[in-house]
């Protein structure tokens, strides 16, 4: 059976050139970059090289990049690190209802520590209202955290406009760009972003490495207190192979992003149009235009999402329903819920996250098997027969 992977918002395969570049750093180049001897020096320059590659992809200076272990760490360092650092300036944080749990749960934690959090609502397409954002800013506001692209629906926030508002009111602006970097152009200068989270495994680097862009002059209280690594902002011996891999993934993305963005968008649109024209009573969740090019979140009336996923999996197709992090609980997705999607539609949402390896044949295969899966489940559903009878 052919295996088709369409869950690239959960994670991606490591790109072959990335793995190739990493391997020497497990073998002969094993040194600690903090050491002054021969074993450390060559490794240290590899870390510097990777830092420059990451910086080039998002248009910042290499010294504005801090290497981390993952997206959650980047979000936590940005949010908790800013909150603590700026505590005597204010205690108010603004975020949005559709952020990743890595952001929302940091904010919840800070609420318990005495911070006040405003959570902005979103509309039916998952978009925030900029006037509402600006109105929420008060003199105690120290941080705005709003994501670049949503992991579940792909909806893209107007980051440059949020940045302009933040700058106007002299409020620090963090964006979780874990789903955006490597998929759409990201420019921290043009968008006036102060802090930006990157996760390697979302675009062809391995799991266990990420980065946080920290605009020059932004103080942060570290999460880990220890050695002097990463300009005293992130203690811990560098994950050299991972960092090298992240650098190469950024270099590859800088080279082929424009081409891949268009190619993957065409595949996603083919999938979306194909489903809309072959299966009745479906609904696309997320913004129709302002959306990550690889993401399709779609709901099928009268049936439940996990059952659809199981049938897709039996045919070799990997997709997801809601956020992959929730797969144990199958509680309603907080993102879809915040968009006001009707409970039954919310319960059947399927997320296709296309990636570099997907082809037109993959899309056509999904289009071939999906109508039958949906009909089989609808034929079992009491809601479907009641609707047909009425």
């Amino acid at each position: 059976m052919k295996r088709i992977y369409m869950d690239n918002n959960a994670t991606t395969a490591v790109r072959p050139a990335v793995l190739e570049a990493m391997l020497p750093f497990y073998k002969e180049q094993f040194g600690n970059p903090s050491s002054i001897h021969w074993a450390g020096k060559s490794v240290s320059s590899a870390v510097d090289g990777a830092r420059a590659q990451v910086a080039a992809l998002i248009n910042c200076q290499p010294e504005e990049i801090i290497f981390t272990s993952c997206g959650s760490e980047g979000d936590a360092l940005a949010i908790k690190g800013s909150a603590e650092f700026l505590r005597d300036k204010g205690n108010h944080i603004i975020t949005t209802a559709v952020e990743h749990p890595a952001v929302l749960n940091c904010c919840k934690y800070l609420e318990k520590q005495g911070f006040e959090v405003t959570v902005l609502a979103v509309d039916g397409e998952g978009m925030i209202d900029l006037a509402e954002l600006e109105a929420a800013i008060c003199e105690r506001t120290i941080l705005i955290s709003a994501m670049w692209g949503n992991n579940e629906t792909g909806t893209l926030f107007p980051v440059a406009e949020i940045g302009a508002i933040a700058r106007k009111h002299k409020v620090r602006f963090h964006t979780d760009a874990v789903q955006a970097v490597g998929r759409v152009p990201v420019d921290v200068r043009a968008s006036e972003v102060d802090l930006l989270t990157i996760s390697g495994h979302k675009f062809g680097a391995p799991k266990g490495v990420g980065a946080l862009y920290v605009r020059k002059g932004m103080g942060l209280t570290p999460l880990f207190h220890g050695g002097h690594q990463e300009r005293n902002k992130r203690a811990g011996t560098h994950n050299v192979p991972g960092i090298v891999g992240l650098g190469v993934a950024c270099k590859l993305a800088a080279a082929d992003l424009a081409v891949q963005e268009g190619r993957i968008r065409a595949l996603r649109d083919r999938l979306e149009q194909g489903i809309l024209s072959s299966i009745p009573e479906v609904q696309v969740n997320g913004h129709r235009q302002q959306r990550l090019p690889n993401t399709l979140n779609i709901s099928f009336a009268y049936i439940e999402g996990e059952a659809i996923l199981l049938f897709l999996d039996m045919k070799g197709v990997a997709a997801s329903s809601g956020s992959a992090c929730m797969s144990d609980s199958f509680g309603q997705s907080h993102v879809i819920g915040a968009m006001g999607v009707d409970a039954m539609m919310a319960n059947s949402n399927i997320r296709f996250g296309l990636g570099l390896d997907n082809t037109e044949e993959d899309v056509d295969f999904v289009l071939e098997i999906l109508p039958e899966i949906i009909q089989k489940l609808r034929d079992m559903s009491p809601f479907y027969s009641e609707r047909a009878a009425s």
Partner: protein
Amino acid sequence: MYSDKVIDHFTNPRNVGVIIDADGIGEKVSSSCGDRMKVFLKVVDGVIEDLKFQTYGCGAAIASSSMMSELVIGKTLDEAQALTNDAVAEALDGLPDPKLHCSNLAADALHDAIKNYQGEGA
């Protein structure tokens, strides 16, 4: 994550459908996940001669519905009344912990249908 039996019953569910002139109809909606099951009974001389179901829900809910139907067709109402949600899950060689509540629909919907039949008959 699911046993072979769950996958078998999910992929090829037994006794899906409705009984137009059912003797008893029951229903159960899960308060936690919104899954919903409807059960239709045909009863002859105190024995469940036929049972059909419709289920809206995940793989575990559909497989539990199907397994429940196999367990009680041909059984007396008293025997069916004694069927527990746990027994359905056990007959499926178990369910992952977060999915146990999905199997709780099947026996409850069955008991609701029996109640409906007995209420009608009384």
